[in-house]
């Protein structure tokens, strides 16, 4: 579905991505983990051409994203829903208006249907009673869920999550994890989840990739990831108190 071929990117004079290769299959929940500044957000931005690679190619369902423009680019972007790290809700619109925005601005959908779809989508993320509030009135976790509702209202094939659980308490984080799982089951979407929260990644991921110094240190299923011989992976696991001796139990949803 998404394929990175030897993607390199230099930002601020230093290489951020240094020959990244991986492929994400349809229906997967692919987690990208790594320390802050490892280039996780940059990797996501390449998938929707918010950034273009200096070298290498990125293919989304066969389309070369790096060179797409105009209608081609719109078609590629149409496949995606993107949950930004900051949720990126428009500050002057209410939650419901934010979620309705793509429908109202782009499609000729009539108002009753819009309201209906907005309500259903908000209910999916558990915000059915908060549609009238503006983003500054709600908590960080609610903003993330509102951003998610906006990302999925056009029924994308792929959802990109940038740090969906960062800055949230553990309980809310697990709620978001469950939501990601539920969306995958209900809508059959492909998910790419960027996170530095390994607990999340191990719980929801079908495969986990670890980014380190612009390269992929490991790509593996959660079980294999735990057993990885890579030193970076083991250090990252240890830093989050996840050890082989006390095996992590997959979250029972």
């Amino acid at each position, binding site marked *: 579905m998404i394929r990175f071929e030897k993607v390199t990117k230099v930002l601020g004079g230093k290489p951020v991505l240094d020959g990244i290769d991986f492929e994400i299959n349809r229906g997967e929940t692919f987690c990208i983990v790594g320390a802050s500044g490892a280039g996780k957000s940059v990797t996501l931005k390449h998938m929707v051409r918010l950034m273009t690679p200096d070298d290498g190619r990125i293919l989304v369902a066969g389309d070369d994203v790096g060179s797409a423009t105009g209608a081609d680019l719109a078609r590629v972007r149409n496949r995606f829903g993107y949950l930004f790290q900051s949720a*990126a809700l428009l500050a002057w619109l209410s939650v419901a208006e934010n979620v309705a925005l793509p429908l109202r601005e782009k499609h000729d959908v009539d108002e009753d249907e819009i309201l209906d779809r907005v309500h259903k989508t908000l209910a999916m993320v558990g915000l059915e009673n908060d549609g009238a509030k503006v983003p500054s009135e709600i908590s960080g976790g609610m903003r993330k869920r509102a951003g998610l509702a906006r990302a999925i209202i056009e029924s994308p094939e792929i959802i990109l999550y940038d740090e969906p659980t960062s800055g949230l308490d553990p309980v809310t984080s697990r709620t978001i994890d469950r939501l990601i799982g539920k969306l995958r089951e209900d809508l059959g979407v492909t998910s790419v989840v960027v996170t530095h929260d390994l607990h999340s990644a191990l719980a929801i991921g079908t495969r986990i990739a670890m980014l380190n110094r612009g390269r992929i240190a490991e790509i593996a299923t959660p079980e294999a990831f735990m057993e990885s011989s890579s030193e970076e992976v083991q250090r990252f696991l240890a830093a989050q108190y996840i050890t082989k001796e006390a095996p992590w139990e997959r979250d029972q949803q």
Partner: protein
Amino acid sequence: MVTREPEYFPPAENFVAQLGRHVIFFCRAVGQGGLLFLQAVLAMRFALTKRARQEIIVQMFVSGIKSLGVITVVALFTGMILALQTGIELSKFNQEVNIGTAVMVSMLREMGPFMTGLILAACVGSAMAAQLGTMVVSEEIAALEIMSIDPVRFLVMPRLVAMSIMTPLLAFYTCIIGVIGGGIVGASQLGVSWVSYIDNATRFAGAKDLYVGLFKALLFGVVITILSCHEGFATTQGAVGVGYATRKAVLVSFLHVLILGYFVTRLFYV
């Protein structure tokens, strides 16, 4: 695409390289501004859709009505100062009744559009740059682009239409208030009655003065909007960048109002 890739330039090696870089950046900014203007004008074909109409009205309120208070005070005192200064000189020749013409013509031709332009640059241009800059920094612009909602059509076009309508109206309002201010000084300090003041003011000012003044105001409105939106979109470096973009938007708008004002006057009156 409005979203720009971050750029990095190693520190310039010497003065010439530094200067050359400034020249290139300047030319590029002119090009980007021109392009933004063209895109916004092209997007005006959607100006009559229901959503756009609502947004335009909101922007007219934000840019116009909210600046009305400041504009009134500034216009009143501009007229009063004009009347006082010319009145003092003219009274040496017993010509103080001609302050009517002096105030009317200079308000219509120059001071009305000029003062309106400066105030709108300071109040509205800065707000536009700050708002769009914040949206860039908090990835809202990027979010719009991923949803394939054109930020130029969604954000710049309504502002451009609103300012193109409001700036000439406000400039005209400024003229009227200025003339009233002149009349107050005339009546209270120079002994010119309201009747002779108004008679004098309306006798010599021609339609051309009005048209050129309004045209100037329209130009200022367009330039302030495009420059401010351009600076907002060009924001980098987080919250600090927003402050920097705002400052630059106001500064550059001021300069343009001054310089363009001169050239329009030269074009029509020389």
